[in-house]
């Protein structure tokens, strides 16, 4: 256990959010059980008012999730000096592999909270609360997710012992290592590049029929492509994009790009990727909502916006990423066999 101010802030903050979310879930259970829109009873009115509290709490929780993702990564970066051989945030994560899961949980929680807020927003657009039960049922899944995140985070920080010898990204992300991260890094850059750009083009092309035709299947496809692109993009960042940004063929760390040395390029890069993926996921995931008559029109209007936003964000992501590849000094060379 390391008693570090950043760790303290993360743990306390997440615990607070979890507490609030548990309270919100208790309200949600009540709402799901007792909701009866046709009733004019005062209880129904109270429930409607409680739903405001729940959405306020989730709004704050999402804000916290976004910021805490950054704080988490910065904290990892701060404490890496405590571990032998750790050169960057990745080294800190490798010091206790649970850290990776904590990070995944944080990312999933971010998407889940954002999607929930979108659902809540849509619900507010209709005059008959068509999504109340749905959204509060989903909320019951969001809370355990945050609980899991807190657990993983605490387990990670508790399991950190400064004497652990971690491998720095150099060796862990080298093709000789094992584990998912190493496999990602070990992916051959050339074929990875092809896959990444192919997925990007497919995704952008997938947007066209969504804008023209009302068919649902195109939207499902679009969402699938968004998910596919997101995973490929993360893999590509680790496998070759980071190399071009750092101009270092061994540095696969996906976090160092937040630093000043690299002109804070990580912020717009991840903002575009995460935002684009979020908007790309929504058309397919919310397709069922179109069946609700009071929301159909609103949905069709919003959907266009989402697709456009997704296309815009993802293409700027691809642009940011391609810049150093196309115009940088750095060249990825293939090494002749005589060396090894």
């Amino acid at each position: 256990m390391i008693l570090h101010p950043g760790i303290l802030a993360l743990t306390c903050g997440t615990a607070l959010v979890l507490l609030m979310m548990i309270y919100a879930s208790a309200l949600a259970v009540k709402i799901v059980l007792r909701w009866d829109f046709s009733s004019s009873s005062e209880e129904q009115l109270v429930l409607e008012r409680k739903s405001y509290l729940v959405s306020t709490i989730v709004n704050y929780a999402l804000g916290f999730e976004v910021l805490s993702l950054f704080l988490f990564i910065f904290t990892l970066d701060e404490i890496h000096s405590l571990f032998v051989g750790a050169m960057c945030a990745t080294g800190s994560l490798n010091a206790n592999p649970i850290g990776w899961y904590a990070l995944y949980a944080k990312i999933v929680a971010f998407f889940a909270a954002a999607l929930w807020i979108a659902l809540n927003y849509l619900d507010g657009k209709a005059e008959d609360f068509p999504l109340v039960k749905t959204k509060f049922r989903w909320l019951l899944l969001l809370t355990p997710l945050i609980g899991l995140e807190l657990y993983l985070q605490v387990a990670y920080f508790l399991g950190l012992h400064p004497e652990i010898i971690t491998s720095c990204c150099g060796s862990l992300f080298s093709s000789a290592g094992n584990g998912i991260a190493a496999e990602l890094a070990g992916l051959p850059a050339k074929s990875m590049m092809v896959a990444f750009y192919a997925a990007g083009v497919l995704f952008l092309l997938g947007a066209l029929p969504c804008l023209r035709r009302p068919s649902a299947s195109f939207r499902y496809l679009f969402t699938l492509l968004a998910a596919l692109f997101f995973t490929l993009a993360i893999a590509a960042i680790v496998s070759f994009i980071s190399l071009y940004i750092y101009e270092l063929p061994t540095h696969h760390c996906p976090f160092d790009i937040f630093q000043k040395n690299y002109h804070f390029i990580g912020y717009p890069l991840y903002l575009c990727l995460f935002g684009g993926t979020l908007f790309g996921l929504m058309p397919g995931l919310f397709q069922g909502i179109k069946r609700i008559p009071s929301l159909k029109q609103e949905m069709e209007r919003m959907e266009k916006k989402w697709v456009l936003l997704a296309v815009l964000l993802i293409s700027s992501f691809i642009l940011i990423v391609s810049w150093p590849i196309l115009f940088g000094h750095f060249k990825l060379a293939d090494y002749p066999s005589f060396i090894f």
Partner: protein
Amino acid sequence: MPLRILLSAMLALIFCATPALAETPPGPGPKDRCAVCGMFVAPYPNWVAVIQFEDGTNAYFDGPKDMFIYYFDFEKFRPASKIADISNIYVTEYYTTRLMKAEEVFFVTGSDILGPMGNELVPVQGLEQAKTFLRDHDGKKIMQFDGKNLTERPADR
């Protein structure tokens, strides 16, 4: 046997001492990039390799590996010059972190010491030290550069 080792060590000492004083090329500036992969060289002073040309220019590398890639594919990287234009090749010796002539050191491959470009040919001066390094760091082969080719010393496995 010990006498021979001592002699070779002394010889190596003399070899390294004279050129180090006389004509060691200047270290890389902050703007110097590796001639093969394009990354900055200055942040990795313990790995710098330099090819010195007769006309006084230097080509910098971020490790012996890239230097050899350049050397063995010379026409591709510097079509304007010939191999004969090279006056000296320097690499940074592992234990002393000083520049030494590439012909005067042994190169150990496959070790767990990674350079900025990952696996490296680690330059070690003196056969005894090279063997120590091979043992300490899980190396695979000891190689030698004779000014033309990089060859393995088969007896040292």
